[in-house]
């Protein structure tokens, strides 16, 4: 049986599209000092440090070593993970492994990205095989547009429903001082935005932001000494699927990785009614159809029910099942940091420390997901208590 792992400190920078007055290291240092302050710890108390992002977004090879001064890793153990869009959630899971394995009592994990410095779309294009499909890829949006069309055809969801989800995210982000895009939009505002690739318009795609998020994890004995409000990582799962390339869309168009991740977590934790037994979901939602369609894939609701819940306002801050009270990836997307923000924001909701974007229902258990790579999924279940 593994050692229990708690989140005992959370720090995030504010997020924006440009922040020229700090360099990469200073951005990370900002998040790290906030997380340490939140945990009321000093760097001396931290046994290991992990830094993660996607290398080619800023161009630095081995940047965990290069930025070791700013992350606090100097003279400490740690290593870098890089799994694409899931890197933020993977870092949280990496932190979990460090402590659950019994090898460490405390660790600091940092996810970051500074998208204003590098070429985002060309870097994303290089996820493909150079010999076959790289010449034909333009960023990540093509595949997402395809599945959006399929979702609409399959379930009766309309463009309006994606716009509703996006509008809801904007209202939430307006209450989150750390979010990047904080303008409020109505459903009509979203529908009026410039079309990028049908059915996704500019507001239905995630932005490119910069920012960093740091978290301190601790073993049970340490956690109880550090904080009165530890948030426990009750379970986590990672599910990969084959590299799709052109094949995606030929076979199934649903996210098998989300489906398997959801069913695994719910089964292992005896959750039969996820909308009741978990109270909030911080979902990695890189496009506006993500929330309605992925609620179904994760098993939060039945097939065809996702957009109806959006229509009913269930996902709102004060709704039946709030999703992304932080505003989500639609409003803030610094890729290496996006996944970790999901975990951090879910933990803040459990602590009741989310401030203006705290959901109205009491949160005992929360979900946080990561998405990336060739349609890969990380899913974490956080809990207020250890039982």
């Amino acid at each position, binding site marked *: 049986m593994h050692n229990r792992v708690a989140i005992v400190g959370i720090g995030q920078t504010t997020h924006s599209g440009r922040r020229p*007055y700090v360099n990469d*290291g200073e951005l990370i240092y900002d998040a790290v000092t906030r997380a340490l302050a939140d945990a009321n710890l000093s760097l001396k108390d931290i046994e290991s440090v992990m830094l993660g992002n996607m290398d080619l977004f800023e161009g630095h090879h081995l940047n965990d070593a290069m930025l070791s001064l700013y992350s606090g890793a100097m003279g400490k153990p740690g290593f870098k993970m890089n799994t694409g869009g899931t890197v933020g959630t993977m870092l949280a899971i990496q932190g979990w492994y460090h402590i659950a394995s019994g090898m460490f009592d405390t660790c600091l994990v940092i996810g970051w990205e500074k998208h204003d410095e590098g*070429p985002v779309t060309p*870097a994303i294009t290089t996820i493909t095989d150079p010999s076959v499909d790289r010449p034909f890829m333009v960023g990540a949006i093509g595949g997402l547009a395809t599945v959006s069309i399929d979702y609409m055809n399959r379930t009766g969801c309309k463009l309006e429903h994606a716009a509703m989800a996006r509008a809801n995210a904007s209202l939430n982000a307006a209450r989150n001082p750390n979010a990047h895009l904080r303008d409020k939009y109505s459903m009509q505002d979203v529908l009026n935005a410039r079309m990028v690739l049908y059915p996704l318009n500019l507001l239905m795609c995630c932005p490119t932001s910069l920012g960093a998020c740091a978290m301190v994890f601790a073993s049970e004995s340490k956690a109880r000494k550090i904080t009165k409000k530890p948030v426990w990582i009750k379970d986590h799962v990672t599910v990969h699927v084959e590299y799709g390339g052109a094949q995606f869309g030929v076979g199934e168009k649903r996210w098998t990785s989300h489906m398997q991740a959801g069913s695994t977590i719910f089964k292992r934790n005896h959750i039969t009614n996820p909308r009741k037994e978990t109270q909030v979901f911080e979902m990695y939602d890189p496009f506006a159809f993500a929330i309605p369609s992925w609620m179904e894939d994760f098993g939060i609701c039945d097939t065809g029910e996702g957009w109806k819940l959006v229509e009913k306002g269930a996902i709102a801050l004060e709704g039946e099942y709030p999703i992304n009270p932080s505003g989500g990836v639609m409003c803030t997307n610094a890729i290496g940091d996006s996944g970790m923000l999901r975990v951090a924001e879910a933990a803040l909701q459990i602590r009741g420390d989310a401030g203006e974007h705290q959901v109205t229902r009491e949160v005992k258990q929360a979900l946080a997901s990561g998405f990336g790579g060739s349609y890969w999924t990380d899913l974490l279940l956080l809990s207020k208590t250890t039982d």
Partner: protein
Amino acid sequence: MANEAVKKEPIFTEGYVIMPYKYSVGTLASKFFIQIRDSKKINGVKCPKCNMVIVPPRSVCIKCFSKIEDLVELSGKGTLVTYTVVHYDSAVQAMKPPYAVGVIKLDGADTAITHFIGEVDFKELKAGMKLEAVFNETRNANILDIKYFKPVKK
């Protein structure tokens, strides 16, 4: 399949990974580069907590992790800690080989800076030798505004 394929010519996809970046150096390093560009002066930082003097100047203390915001002026003279003479070519080099690179500890600093060593007979390179900075005529606010460090004439 394996043996059969070995007989045939391997097939390659030739190309590049080309990515342009525009890095912010941050407020503190901006001041450092502007000082070099405008006044030919090399600055370090002094940690307000542990008094460590750090060059090149970073906004975090390498010893106590405190935040550092202010620059202190250094003389531009220092001692050679270690060095090498480069004899090979590579795609990233800023100089034509042979040339010398060294780690130089500026007077008054606790850490050292890496840069070229010029106007020197390679045979005379020695740890502990006194060096001073030479600046380029045209300066663009980056580390290459320092042309190299040269031996101080006795």
